[in-house]
């Protein structure tokens, strides 16, 4: 049964130089080299094959080599140089200062790789150190150089924290690391792949963070207070609105009672009004009826008055006609007399004078007759006691105001 040899039992191990003479030779041992592992054989001081992706059996030679050693016919010095060929990240802590004096600390992360052809160069690493190389050991080896050649110059070009976090600074760091470390890494058997800086917070950034946190806390407190005030205002508004609604409801209820009372009172008033209106209509009807009766009497009185007046006018007209006829006869007579006197030559001034005197006397007689008649008609009228207008004797009521006479 072949024994499996394991050259690496810690993931931090990158390379290991093994003296094959220290391995058991009489018992077969094999090692499986995976795709990310390689092994260089150094036999009697010469670099031999570099193997990978292979199962190396009898790595220590086995029983045959044990016999050969005893007989002195095999190589005197055999060394196995194992290495991991995959990319490996190493972190180198650093502390520096910006030109402003601010302290900066962090890690310089470098990704390196050991390629198959470069495995023998690892002998340079093992020349003055232990035959095992791990990440920590590699970081220690590179620390001073990377600090002096890469980190400090990069920080010296950085003016403030803003540039410290910029991608341009990372680019410069990577370029500078590659340029400055290539020779060293190549000598040690490594290929530089990538580099970047991991920076912790600076003092100024901590201060700004604290300020931001305090500001955020203040703003948060302010927001809480504002929200609380708003909530209180909403509650206050709701309470006020509820009270207002309750007051309005109470008012409305009170107003409703008043309205009912007013409506009942209004009904009473309307009832009273209707009663009064009915009475008024009744009185008006009575009055109208009375007025109709009164106007009927007045019309009767006026008809009688008109009849009397017509009779009177007829009588006066007859008198005037009679008088005119008499006057005409007298005038005719006087004309005839005057003509007779003129025919008889008796028309003297004395005759004419006598004639005019008689005619004047005649007219005076006619005129006094009219005045007597007017004086006799005047006592038939008198003034009404109610309205003061003239009424006739014998009327029962005044035609102007309707009162009984």
């Amino acid at each position, binding site marked *: 049964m072949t024994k499996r040899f394991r050259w690496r039992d810690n993931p931090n191990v990158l390379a290991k130089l093994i003296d094959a003479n220290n391995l058991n030779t009489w018992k077969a041992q094999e090692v499986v080299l995976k795709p990310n592992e390689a092994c260089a054989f150094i036999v009697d001081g010469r670099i031999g094959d570099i193997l990978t992706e292979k199962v190396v059996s009898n790595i220590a030679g086995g029983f045959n080599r044990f016999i050969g050693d005893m007989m002195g016919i095999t190589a005197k010095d055999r060394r196995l140089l194992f290495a991991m060929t995959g990319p490996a990240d190493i972190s180198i802590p650093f502390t520096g200062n910006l030109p402003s004096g601010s302290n900066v600390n962090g890690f310089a992360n470098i990704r390196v790789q050991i*390629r198959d052809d470069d495995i023998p160069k690892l002998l340079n690493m093992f020349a003055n150190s232990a035959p095992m190389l791990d990440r920590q050991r590699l970081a220690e080896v590179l620390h001073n150089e990377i600090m002096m050649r890469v980190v400090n110059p990069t920080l010296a070009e950085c003016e403030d924290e803003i540039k410290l976090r910029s991608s341009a600074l990372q680019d410069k760091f990577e370029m500078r690391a*590659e340029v400055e470390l290539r020779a060293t890494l190549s000598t040690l058997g490594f290929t530089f792949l990538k580099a970047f800086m991991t920076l912790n917070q600076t003092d100024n950034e901590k201060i700004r963070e604290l300020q931001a946190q305090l500001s955020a806390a203040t703003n948060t407190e302010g927001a809480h207070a504002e929200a609380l005030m708003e909530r209180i205002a909403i509650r206050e508004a709701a309470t006020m609105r509820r009270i207002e609604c309750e007051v309005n409801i109470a008012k409305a209820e009170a107003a409703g009672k008043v309205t009912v009372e007013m409506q009942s009172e209004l009904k009473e008033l309307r009832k009273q009004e209707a009663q009064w209106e009915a009475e008024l209509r009744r009185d008006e009807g009575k009055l109208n009826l009375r007025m109709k009766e009164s106007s009927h009497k007045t019309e009767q009185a006026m008809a009688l008055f008109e009849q009397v007046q017509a009779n009177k006018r007829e009588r006066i007209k007859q008198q005037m006609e009679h008088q005119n006829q008499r006057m005409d006869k007298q005038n005719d007579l006087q004309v005839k007399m005057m003509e007779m006197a003129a025919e008889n030559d008796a028309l003297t001034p004395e005759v004419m004078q006598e004639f005019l005197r008689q005619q004047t006397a005649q007219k005076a007689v006619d005129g006094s007759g009219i005045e007597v008649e007017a004086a006799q008609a005047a006592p038939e009228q008198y003034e009404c006691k109610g309205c003061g207008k003239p009424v006739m004797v014998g009327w029962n009521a005044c035609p102007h105001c309707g009162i009984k006479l």
Partner: protein
Amino acid sequence: MPAVPIEVLPYIRGIQLVLSSYEGYTKGKRREADGLIRDEIKRAGTRARNHLSNIQDIAFKSDKMDIAKIAKLATSEIDNLIEDVDKSVTGMNHAFFSGARSVKVSDLKKLIKHDHDVIEMVTKAINIANSAEHAFSTSTPDEEVKNLVQQCQQMITSCQGFFNSRNKILGGLRQKTK
């Protein structure tokens, strides 16, 4: 393993100009041929990378960051190619136990042609990188240097694609046809 087809002999001759021990995927030498091709790609990639690293160093020292950045991108691309090649599939020793199907003539043709194309591309990349370094060291304008570096990067990317296709063919051999 069938014999090497006659049609791909010119390709084999072309590869042999670079790799003298290359004989195509003849019987018993399939993994060896694969290893030779891979080693050659890594070696050629490293050569191109060295040229570009020189350009990057000088550009950074002379404060030409734009050229340095482009050169850095190209070197990163070459690192990716080398890593792809280093960790690519190889195939098994015993087809019967591994479940792989037998290699056909068409597979061999494809593989050899791919090998030829990849070697040709990576050789071109070396030439372009060399030209870029030469141009950078003379009074050639920076734009031309950048163009050359970018051409080199493009060639490496194409080479990476071709190599992945080759891996696909090799991977196909591990599956038996139904």
